C-alpha cells in the first residue's frame, strides 16, 4: 500500500458506498431505505470533496455541495413527507426473497469487478481502482429496481443508480463538466417531484402503490 491517506479514505468511502448498496438491497422498510439513501449520498459527497481537495479539481467542490444539498437533505426530506402523506410506511415485499437477492447481488459484484478491471487500467486517474465499486453499485441499484414491486422503492433504486453513475464519473474522469452535472442534478430534482405527483395518481387509480396493478392497465 503506497497510497496517500486521503486516497485511502476515498477507497474506504467507496467500500462504504457498496456496503450501503447491499444494505438497501436487504432493507424491508421504506423509512430505512430512505435513511440508507441519505447515507449513501453523504458518503458520495464526502468522497467527491476529498477527491476535489487532493487533485485540485475545483468544480468537484460544486458537485459535492450539489450532492449534499440534493441527495442528503432535499430528496430524503421530500420522501419522508411523501410517505407520511401517502401513509405507506409498511414493509415492502420483494418479488424474490432477500437471501436470493443478496446472492444475485454478490454475483453482480464479481461481474462488475472483473468488467471494470481492464477499463480502470486505461483510466489515468488516481481513483481508478474504485471504478469497479461504482459499477457494482449501479448494478445493485438496478437489481433493487427489478426486485421491488412498490413505486417508492423503485424510485429510490433509480436514484441510487444515479449515485453509482456519479461515483463512476468521479473515479474514472474526475467528474463530468459542471454544466452536465448541473443538468443531471436538475433532471433528478424534476424527476423526483414528477414521480412524487405520480404516486398520488397511482394510489388514486389503484388504491395501492403496487406497480403490478399497472400491468393490467387497459382502456375502458
Amino acid at each position, binding site marked *: *500500500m503506497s497510497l496517500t491517506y486521503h486516497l485511502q479514505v476515498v*477507497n*474506504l468511502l*467507496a467500500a462504504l458506498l457498496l*456496503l450501503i448498496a447491499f444494505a438497501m438491497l436487504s432493507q424491508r422498510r421504506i423509512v430505512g431505505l430512505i435513511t440508507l439513501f441519505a447515507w449513501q449520498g453523504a458518503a458520495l459527497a464526502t468522497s467527491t470533496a476529498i477527491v476535489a481537495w487532493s487533485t485540485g479539481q475545483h468544480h468537484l467542490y460544486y458537485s459535492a455541495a450539489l450532492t449534499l444539498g440534493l441527495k442528503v437533505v432535499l430528496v430524503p426530506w421530500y420522501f419522508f413527507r411523501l410517505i407520511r402523506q401517502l401513509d405507506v410506511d409498511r414493509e415492502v415485499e420483494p418479488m424474490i426473497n432477500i437471501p436470493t437477492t*443478496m446472492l444475485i447481488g454478490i454475483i453482480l*459484484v464479481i461481474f462488475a469487478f472483473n468488467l471494470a478491471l481492464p477499463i480502470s487500467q486505461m483510466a489515468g486517474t488516481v481513483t481508478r481502482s*474504485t471504478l469497479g465499486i461504482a459499477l457494482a453499485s449501479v448494478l445493485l441499484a438496478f437489481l433493487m429496481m427489478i426486485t421491488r414491486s412498490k413505486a417508492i422503492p423503485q424510485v429510490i433504486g433509480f436514484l441510487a443508480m444515479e449515485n453509482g453513475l456519479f461515483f463512476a464519473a468521479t473515479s474514472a474522469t474526475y467528474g463530468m463538466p459542471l454544466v452536465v452535472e448541473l443538468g443531471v442534478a436538475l433532471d433528478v430534482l424534476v424527476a423526483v417531484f414528477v414521480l412524487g405527483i405520480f404516486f398520488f395518481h397511482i394510489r388514486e387509480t389503484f388504491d395501492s402503490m403496487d406497480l403490478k396493478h399497472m400491468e393490467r392497465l387497459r382502456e375502458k
Partner: protein
Amino acid sequence: MTTGIALQIGQTLLALVLAPMLMGWVNVCRAWLQGRVAPPLLQPYYNLRKLFHKDAVLAHDATRLFRFAPYIIFACMVLAAGIVPTLANDLPFSPAADVIALVGLFALARVFQALAALDIGTAFGSLGARREMLIAFLAEPALLMVFFTASLISQSTELPHIVDRLAHQEFALYPSLAFAAVAFWMVSTAENARIPVDNPTTHLELTMIHEAMVLEYSARHLAMIEWAVALKLFTYSTLGIALFLPWGIAPAGDLNALPLALLALALKLAIGGAALALLETVNAKMRLFRAPEFLGTAFLLAVLGMLTHFLLEV
C-alpha cells in the same frame, strides 16, 4: 521465553477475572439506557459466589456427560481466551493455535453444550440444542470468512501476526476490514446469544435459544456455564479489538508498553460494552426464522470484504 509464558498466563488470568465485570458493565449500560435503576457493576461476581455455595441438583436421567459438560465448556473458553492477544503480542502458545483452531474451540464448546442439553431429554433442552445448531452452522462460515479477510492482509492466520501487521507497521486504512467488522458484529451477536438473534434475559419458550439449553443446570454447574458465557463475550470483544482496533496492544518483547496497553484495553472494553448495550437497546429481537437471513447477510458481507481486498488493496 519466560516473560512470554508469564504474559500468556497473566493474560489468561486477566480474562478470567475481567470477564464477569464486562458482563456487569453491559448490564449497567443497558439499565441506564432503558431508564431502569442499574444493578451493581459487580453483580455477576455476587451471582457466581452464590451459585458456587449452593448444592447442585441433577436430573434423574442425567449421565456423566451432563455433569462434565460445564467443565469442558469452561476449559474451552479459557483456552480460547489464551489465544487472543489482549495486552501483549507475545504469546508462546500462538503457533499451536491460530484463528481456525479458535473457531474449532468455540465449536467444541457448542457441541458439548448441545449434547448436554439433549442428554436429559427434556423438551426445552432439545429445542434449544436444535436452535443453537441452526444458528451455529450459519455463523461459523461467516466467522471464518471474517478471519480470512484479516489473514489476506497479514498473510498469516495467527492472531499475533495479524495484530503486528495492523498495529505495529505502517498505518493504512483497509476498506475490506470495514466489511469484515460489520460481518463480525453480526456473527458475534449470534454466537454470544445477544439481541437481535437471541435475548440473554428472556425465559419465554418461543424465543429462547441459549437459555433453553441451560435450564436444567444449577449451582456450581450453572456457575461454570455463566462464567463461560462471560468469558466468551470477553474473548469475542478482545478478538474484535485485535482485528479492528489493535492500536495499544504492546508489541512483542516491549514490557514498558504494558501499563498503556492495560489502560487502552480497559477503555476499549468500556466503550465496546456501552456500544453493545446501545445496539441491544435500539434493536428488537428478530424472529427465529429471520436469523438465517441475518447470518447469510453476514457471510455475504465477509465475502464482499475479501473481494474488495483484491480490488483495492493488492
